C-alpha cells in the first residue's frame, strides 16, 4: 500500500518537475497561457528575430499559398517551436537567429535543403575561446565523450538533447532558489527519461520505468525533489562546473553514504557553488541546511560532543557505583 502511495506521489512529483519545462520549453501550455512578453530583456535583434517568431513562436502559423491564391493556417511542428519568452530568458538571448541559422531562412517558403543544415554543437562556439576558458569546454567535451550518452551519437544524441540552445539557461550558478534549479535540471533528464516519444528516438528499449528502477531509494519523492539526477549518475570532475560524464546505470551511486556522510559528495556537486560556507551553527556541511537536510551529512558537532560527554559521564557514574557495591559486598563477607 505504502509503495503504491509513494508511486503516486513520485508520479505527481515528476509531473510537477515537468511543469518547470524541459530545458525551458513549455510543455503544458493552455489557451490562456499564450506567449505574452514577460521577459524584460530587449534584444538588439528583436525586429529581425520577430520575423522568425511570427511563425516559429507559436503552435499556429499562417502564410499565403500563392498556388492556391489564399491564406492558409497551419500547425507548426512542435520541434520547430521556440517560445519567445523562453528564448529571451535563455543563455543565448542576445543572439540573432541568423547568427546560427542560414541567412537564407529569411526567405519563405524555406528551401528544403536548409532543413539539412548542420547544427552547431556547444564546442563549435565555446571551444578555444578565451572568454569561456574558465568553463573548460574542452574538458566538458572530453568527459562527454566518455559518457554513456556519447555512445548514442550515431542515433542522434548531441549537446542539444540536454542543452537546447534556444531555451537552455544556466541555473545552478545564477539561481538563489535551489529547489527550482533542481527541478529545472532534473526536467532536462526527464525530458527523455520519462517521455517515451523522446526516449524512443535514441533507443530500442520499449519502456521507461524510472520510478520502479528507483524503488530501492527510500523516500523517493524527497530524493527526486531535493537532489539532481546527475548527483548519482555522473562522475564528479572538479575542473568543470557541472559533471558531464554520465555513467552507465550500473555505475550510478547506490551507496547511501556517498551523500549521507560527513564528506558528502553533494558538497562537490549540488552545493559546489556555495560550499565555501562549510559549517553553520556547528552543523557539518551546513550550507545544505539552507535548502535541505541530509541525515548523516548534517551532524551537529556541539550535539555530538555533548552526547559523548553525557554518555561517558553515565558510564563513569555506573562504574563508580559498581566499585562501591563490590567494596560493600567484600565488607559484608
Amino acid at each position, binding site marked *: 500500500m505504502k509503495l503504491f502511495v509513494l508511486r503516486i506521489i513520485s508520479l505527481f512529483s515528476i509531473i510537477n518537475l515537468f511543469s518547470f519545462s524541459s530545458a525551458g520549453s513549455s510543455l503544458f501550455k493552455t489557451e490562456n497561457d499564450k506567449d505574452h512578453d514577460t521577459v524584460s530583456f530587449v534584444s538588439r535583434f528583436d525586429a529581425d528575430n520577430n520575423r522568425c517568431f511570427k511563425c516559429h513562436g507559436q503552435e499556429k502559423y499562417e502564410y499565403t499559398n500563392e498556388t492556391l491564391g489564399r491564406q492558409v493556417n497551419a500547425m507548426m511542428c512542435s520541434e520547430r517551436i521556440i517560445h519567445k519568452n523562453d528564448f529571451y530568458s535563455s543563455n543565448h538571448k542576445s543572439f540573432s537567429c541568423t547568427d546560427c541559422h542560414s541567412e537564407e531562412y529569411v526567405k519563405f517558403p524555406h528551401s528544403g535543403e536548409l532543413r539539412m543544415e548542420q547544427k552547431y554543437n556547444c564546442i563549435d562556439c565555446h571551444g578555444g575561446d578565451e572568454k569561456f576558458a574558465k568553463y573548460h569546454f574542452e574538458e566538458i567535451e572530453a568527459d562527454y565523450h566518455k559518457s554513456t550518452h556519447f555512445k548514442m551519437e550515431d542515433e542522434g544524441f548531441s549537446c542539444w538533447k540536454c542543452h537546447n540552445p534556444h531555451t537552455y539557461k544556466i541555473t545552478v550558478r545564477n539561481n538563489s532558489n535551489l529547489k527550482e534549479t533542481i527541478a529545472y535540471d532534473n526536467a532536462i533528464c526527464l525530458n527523455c527519461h520519462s517521455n517515451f516519444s523522446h526516449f524512443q528516438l535514441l533507443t530500442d528499449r520499449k519502456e521507461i520505468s524510472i520510478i520502479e528502477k528507483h524503488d530501492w531509494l527510500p523516500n523517493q519523492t*524527497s530524493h527526486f525533489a531535493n537532489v539532481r539526477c546527475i548527483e548519482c549518475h555522473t562522475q564528479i570532475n572538479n575542473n568543470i562546473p557541472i559533471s558531464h560524464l554520465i555513467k552507465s546505470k550500473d555505475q550510478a551511486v547506490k551507496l547511501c553514504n556517498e551523500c*549521507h556522510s560527513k564528506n558528502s559528495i553533494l558538497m562537490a556537486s549540488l552545493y559546489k557553488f556555495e560550499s565555501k560556507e562549510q559549517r553553520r551553527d556547528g552543523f557539518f556541511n551546513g550550507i545544505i541546511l539552507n535548502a*535541505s*537536510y541530509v541525515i548523516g551529512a*548534517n*551532524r551537529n558537532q556541539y*550535539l555530538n560532543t555533548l552526547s559523548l560527554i553525557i554518555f561517558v559521564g553515565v558510564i563513569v557514574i*555506573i562504574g563508580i557505583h559498581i566499585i562501591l557495591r563490590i*567494596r560493600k559486598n567484600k565488607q559484608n563477607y
Partner: protein
Amino acid sequence: MYLYPKWIRVWHLINAAMFLILIVTGISMQYTDKENASYVVGFAKAVKWHNFAAIVLVLNYIFFVTGNLLTKNGRYYRIGRKDFMSDLGKQFKYYSVGMFKGEKHPFPVTEERKFNPLQKLTYILAMYVAVPLLIISGIGLLLPEITIKTFFGVSGLILTDILHITMGFFLSIFMIIHIYTCTLGAKPTSLFWGMISGYHREE
C-alpha cells in the same frame, strides 16, 4: 510476588528488542561515513531495519497505552503523593549513599507500589514524554513531505531530526541506566528473571 502479567512481559520484550535495533541502526545512519561504510550496519540496511523496528515499536506502544488504560497497571504511572519530591530525594539518597551503608530500601516493592519514586518519574518521562516525541518526530522523518517546512525561519526537518535524535539519545541513556538499576535487586540477576517469570523476588 506475581507482579508482571504476561502482556506486560511480552510488551517489554518486544519494546527492548525494537529499542536495541533502533539504537544500533540509528547510530549507523547518523555516523556511517564513506570510509567506514559499515560503521555498525550499512546505511541502506539501517534505514530498512530502523523503519521496520519503528513501526513495530509504535504498534507496541499503542498496545502498552491501551493495556494501561484497560488494566490496573496504569495506576503505577500516576504521581499522587504530595511529598513526591521528598520521596525522590530519599530514593536518590538510598542509591547514592544508603545502600552502601546497608540501609533498608525506603520504598520496597509491593503490589500497590511496583515502582520506587525515581523509577516512577523516569518511566513516566520515558514512556509518556520521550517516546511520544520520538514517535511523532520519527513519523516526520519517515514522511518528510508532511513535515512543516519552516518553523520560525528554521527548517522543520532540522528541528524534527534534532528532536528525534535527542529523544533517541536520552532514551538510550535511560536504557543503559535501566539495565544497570535492574542489577540492584536481591541478586544482580533476580530482577531480570522477574521480568521473564513474572514473579518479583523479595530483597
